[in-house]
């Protein structure tokens, strides 16, 4: 029995590759497996190669895997593009004139089996040419001995509205696939062991972020469509109206943040979501949120830059823009979830921090994390409690007894009690200009100094529950790998592999709070170690950030990849090994 399987379907865009992949993933999830996925696609609507990769494991797993056990080819490009990833003994399913089972050998040396068959014809014979992908899924299920009932259940859900006939023909197609497996490629690969089913969610980073936001009380999102952030807007546009909130698709990204700032000023928990180009457009208004001390959450789902760049590819290159973007100096907090699970909590905490510190909070994501689904243990709805900070009631405002309420009152912690517009005893002024406590324009030097200190010091101690993940890997390590976002799973696996190979003992820091950077807590963990960042960008922006805070220049490097694809474990492992050998 096998404890994991790596599966991929590839084909042309617009031909159901996505839905086929998702269906197989969900089947594995229902069977109790932990599933990680990765979709590759192009910036066009129809045509062009796309694929959907799955890794299913018994235990929680954060990486969709380097290899492939079953490769389902719906176009001619799939095999050549992915041959180098085939695992020993893999099965390749492909369309062909007639049924053929052949042995193949990849350029990497591994041998595999190709199972060629006339999928379309078989489906047509079954009375539903559209069901050809179902046959292929049946074959896949057959190979690892997944119970067809699960697939059939989904078929009923999906085709429910299309009537019995469609449902039946699809079910038949699945069965046919299983039969074909038994007949032509029996026992080709080991069956999956049975695991107990737990309460898992199968969810993407965008969805987890949107879900966390909604649960934290966010009732307003204004945004402009952009890959890979659009799903945040799409999911919330379905869900928010049910709870009295709404999503606004507005005319551009500047309006996106401005509407949200307006809504937040009025008291609603509000957010905007975007990707790189949109973030750049938002930086002026971001400064307004910082200066006027209006809470706001900005989700930035990173994609390949710069400029229009690689709109449908993965990258982590907006770090510096998230931390430094906007002219002048504002209070801000920059978070970046390590996993999809964390994305839920981080989103929820973001709204708390925005209210508590009355400042913008940027929630970083990356395409790898945003658009790909993964199973995670269901979220703990008790972990993050809603905290609206120094929001005050009209009653409380009344006690101040001011004709014009001092919105920017100087306080010990730099945070001013915040009334809302509409409160009878708290008429107040909010402003993007430098202002005095009343919110009125002030060019006075002393006031300026006080206000700058107030704003910029107030966030210094901001800290989320888990500002970084740390894995000391069971003891002394001479090297520490530092990452952020969707590289979490790959780094974990890399370390495990290196450890198993006896190459090196490495620890792992995965930073979730980029600004303010929890350097005091990080320092002891990197002291005396060789620091190696693993990041998807060219300049090593995370390394630069660390170096800014700690004098590790002579003992630190970055492992980078910037070709639009996520890391594989083997790439990271190889580079770590090179670094070590070079040092020794």
């Amino acid at each position, binding site marked *: 029995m096998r404890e994991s399987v790596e599966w991929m379907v590839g084909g042309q865009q617009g031909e159901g590759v996505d839905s086929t992949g998702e269906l197989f993933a969900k089947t594995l999830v229902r069977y109790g497996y932990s599933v990680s996925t990765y979709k590759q696609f192009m910036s066009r609507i129809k045509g062009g190669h796309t694929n959907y990769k799955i890794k299913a494991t018994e235990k929680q797993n954060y990486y969709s895997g380097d290899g492939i056990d079953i490769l389902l080819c719906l176009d001619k490009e799939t095999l050549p593009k992915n041959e180098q990833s085939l695992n020993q003994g893999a099965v390749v399913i492909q369309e062909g004139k007639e049924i053929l089972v052949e042995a193949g050998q990849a350029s990497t040396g591994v041998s595999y089996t190709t199972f060629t068959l006339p999928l379309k014809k078989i489906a047509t014979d079954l009375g539903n040419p559209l069901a050809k992908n179902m046959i292929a899924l049946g074959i896949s299920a057959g190979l690892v001995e997944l119970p067809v009932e699960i697939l059939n259940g989904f078929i009923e859900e999906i085709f429910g509205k299309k009537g019995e006939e469609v449902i039946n023909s699809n079910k038949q197609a699945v069965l046919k696939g299983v039969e074909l497996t038994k007949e032509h490629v029996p026992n080709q690969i080991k069956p999956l062991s049975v695991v107990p089913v737990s*309460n898992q*969610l*199968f969810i993407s980073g965008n*969805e987890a972020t949107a*879900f966390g936001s909604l*649960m*934290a009380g966010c*009732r*307003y999102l204004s945004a402009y469509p952009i890959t890979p952030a659009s799903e945040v807007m799409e999911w919330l546009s379905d869900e928010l109206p049910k*709870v*009295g*909130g*709404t999503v*606004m698709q*507005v*005319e*551009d990204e*500047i*309006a996106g943040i*401005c*509407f*949200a*700032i*307006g*809504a*937040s*000023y*009025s*008291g*609603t*928990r*509000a957010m905007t979501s975007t990707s790189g180009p949109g973030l750049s457009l938002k930086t*002026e*208004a971001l400064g*307004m949120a910082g200066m*006027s001390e209006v809470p706001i959450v900005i989700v930035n789902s990173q994609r390949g830059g710069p400029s229009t760049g690689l709109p449908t590819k993965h990258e982590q290159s907006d770090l510096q823009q998230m931390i430094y973007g906007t002219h002048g100096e504002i209070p801000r907090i920059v978070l970046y979830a390590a996993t999809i699970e964390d994305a839920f909590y981080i989103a*929820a905490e973001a709204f708390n921090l925005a209210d508590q510190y009355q400042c913008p909070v940027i929630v970083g994501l990356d395409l790898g994390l945003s658009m790909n689904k993964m199973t995670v243990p269901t*979220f703990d*709805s*008790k972990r*993050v*409690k*809603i*905290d*609206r900070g120094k929001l005050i009631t009209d009653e409380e405002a009344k006690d101040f007894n001011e*004709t*014009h309420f001092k919105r920017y009152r100087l306080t010990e912690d730099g945070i001013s009690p915040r009334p*809302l*517009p*509409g409160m*009878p005893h708290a*008429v*107040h*002024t*909010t*402003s*993007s200009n430098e202002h005095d406590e009343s*919110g*009125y*324009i002030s060019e006075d030097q002393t006031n300026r100094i006080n206000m700058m200190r107030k704003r910029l010091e107030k966030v210094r101690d901001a800290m989320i529950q888990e500002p970084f993940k740390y894995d000391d890997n069971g003891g002394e390590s001479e090297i520490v790998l530092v990452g952020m976002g969707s590289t979490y799973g790959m780094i974990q696996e890399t370390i495990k592999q290196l450890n198993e190979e006896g190459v090196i003992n490495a620890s792992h820091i995965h930073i979730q709070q980029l600004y303010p950077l929890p350097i005091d807590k990080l320092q002891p963990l990197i002291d005396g170690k060789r620091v190696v960042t693993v990041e998807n960008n060219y300049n090593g922006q995370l390394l630069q950030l660390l170096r800014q805070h700690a004098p590790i220049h002579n003992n630190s490097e970055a492992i980078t990849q910037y070709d639009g694809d996520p890391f594989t474990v083997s790439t990271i492992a190889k580079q770590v090994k090179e670094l070590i050998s070079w040092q020794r």
Partner: protein
Amino acid sequence: MATLKDLRGDTPSWCPGCGHFSIMAGIQKAVVQLGYEPHEFAIISGIGCSGKVSEYVRTNGFHTIHGRSVPVAQGVKMGNPDLKVIASGGDGDGYGIGLGHFVHASRRNIDMSYIVMDNNIYGLTKGQTSPRSEHGFVTKTTKEGNKEYPVDPVSTSLANGATFVAQAFAGDIKQMVDIIERAIEHKGFSHVNIYSPCVTFNKVNTYDFYKERLTKIEKPFEDRDEALAKVRELSGLVTGVLYEEKRPDFQGKLGIEFDTQSCTNGEMDEDLFHKMEKQFQ
């Protein structure tokens, strides 16, 4: 009931004689005469001499950034539909950098008023042409005269669906107050363009210039396109409410039971969580 004094905020720093004074007074008067209290309003302003109005009228105020008062204001209204929301700013702010937002607001019809202080010039940056400056207008950067033609804001909002379109003149406070009152009471996006002479930098579009040229429209046109035709015919030199249409505002059309302000400290809503969680199982 609020008095004019209650509506007085910070001391204005405008040049003596600036048209913006009258508009500020007009807003204050309208609020008082309609019987509202300062806290019921939020004035969202842009940047420019005009933008300071949100600090000078004592209601809730948000002095935003250049060209973005209209999107912020729409967000404010959506966040708290109980507020009366006025966006206000200059012609540069609204028809230059902010033009796109203005047109989209016109077609969206969120319930708010947009009061533009149109002095045909960039005041605060010391007298460059604005998108409302006349063709041939001379400034220090257009010494040979402005080679562009002005934006036609009233026709533009009319053509793009605004449900209340009016124009006023800072030199006629009575009419202006009446128009502002009607704009405030209109349910939907109301666009009020107000000619507001800049006495320091604009020596062409003076009080006299407008007094001599403006035609009063006594009664709104029944038909949007008639209003449009009239405005075009008179080169925009009209005052009065040009068009008003009763139509559900954007938020009304959404048909959502808005409940955006009830988020309070405490645990997440467990029932809601379990309901939502299902779709990912």
